[in-house]
């Protein structure tokens, strides 16, 4: 009788341990799952943006309230993570491109042509960066082009070549295999909140066409 009682107690203990273990496993999976969901969704919305914070136009994205006082928490988190100090969106706009017109990641082992139309702004500057925010290094030390230096066609449009080999006209040298980020800064935006004007600017942004890849 006594031995049967001990057997039952041991069995209950084992069962309790197994149940506790199963419960603890479920809790750990639940916590890890929640953290993964929270972390990945936050990273996506801070890095890429969403319609709540960002407008997308072809290859270009724009954080609408970059630098603004009272900007939404996503924009504030995006700015803190990026380490940038943008001017308020009523004075400047910062368009960013990470992909070409086909949606492929921009990289230094391909050649590109950027074809743009005149932009209704005081001054613009287009610059190439590596992913950590450093200007692209090349042999001629030029990693940007601006509205003063760019050579234009008769109708005011322009083409900028990004390639390893020298090209006539507007040329920025790229070589290597790293991904590229292109920033287009528009300074002297006096009425960016005016929808028709913003729309005109977005329609005239350069189209990024990929040519050959090495």
């Amino acid at each position: 009788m006594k031995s049967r009682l001990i057997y039952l107690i041991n069995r209950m203990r084992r069962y309790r341990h197994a149940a506790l273990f199963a419960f603890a496993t479920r809790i750990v999976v639940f916590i890890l799952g929640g953290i993964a969901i929270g972390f990945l969704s936050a990273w996506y919305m801070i890095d890429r943006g969403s319609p709540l914070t960002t407008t997308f136009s072809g290859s270009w994205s724009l954080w609408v309230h970059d630098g603004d006082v009272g900007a939404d928490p996503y924009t504030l988190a995006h700015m803190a993570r990026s380490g940038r100090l943008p001017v308020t969106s009523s004075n400047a706009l910062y368009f960013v491109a990470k992909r070409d017109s086909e949606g492929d990641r921009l990289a230094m082992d391909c050649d590109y042509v950027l074809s743009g139309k005149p932009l209704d702004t005081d001054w613009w500057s287009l610059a190439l960066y590596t992913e950590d925010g450093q200007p692209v290094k090349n042999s001629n030390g030029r990693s940007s082009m601006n509205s003063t230096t760019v050579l234009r066609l008769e109708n005011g449009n322009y083409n900028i070549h990004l390639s390893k080999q020298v090209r006539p006209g507007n040329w920025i040298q790229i070589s290597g295999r790293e991904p590229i980020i292109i920033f287009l800064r528009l300074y002297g935006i006096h009425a960016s909140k005016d929808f028709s004007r913003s729309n005109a600017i977005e329609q005239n942004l350069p189209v990024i066409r990929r040519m050959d890849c090495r």
Partner: protein
Amino acid sequence: MNISWSGLLFRVATLLVFGAAVHISIILFLPHFAQGDAWARLENEAGLNRLVILSGNGRKKAPIAFMAPDVRYAACRYDLSGGPVQLRSPLPNDLWSIAFYSRHGENYYLISGRDVQSQAVNLLVVFDKTIDNEKPGERNLSGTGNNVLREITVSAPSPQGIVLIRAPVPGSAFASEVSDRLKQAFCRPVVFARQQAAAHEQRIGKRR
């Protein structure tokens, strides 16, 4: 394991609510704990209340991410706990600008060459919430016409922040001219400016 639909739904909903809580916490706390924000990066460049010309093309990592290669920058991390800070800078053309940021990068005030038709501007940064930056206090310190030196009082929303001067370089021919002009800018505590003025007065007094 036999789980009913309602039990499964409850578990998924709980998981999503927990995930949303994690998501909101990350978004809200990131600006306060980000190690690579502009303030943290500029700490390596210069002490408080000092203007430093930033180099974006050197070998070391750029002090601000994504600096425009055709813009020269100068930055001052200010701390108003010891009193107001004075910033003086040329604004020689429409493209130059001086932007004031909170500790977390909100651009609360901006003045450009387009706004001020003078070769230099004196900005007094104070921590005084009674001042409206939309109607800043403004007076002429010296000079006339385009050579007038204006002083504008700017109210900071918190004691710490950053001032960033942007000086676009339209082409390489303008590089040295822009750099020379930028070197004329400075940032310093007003107490220090007063001490200097007092020392100057003393020196003059001794000579007399």
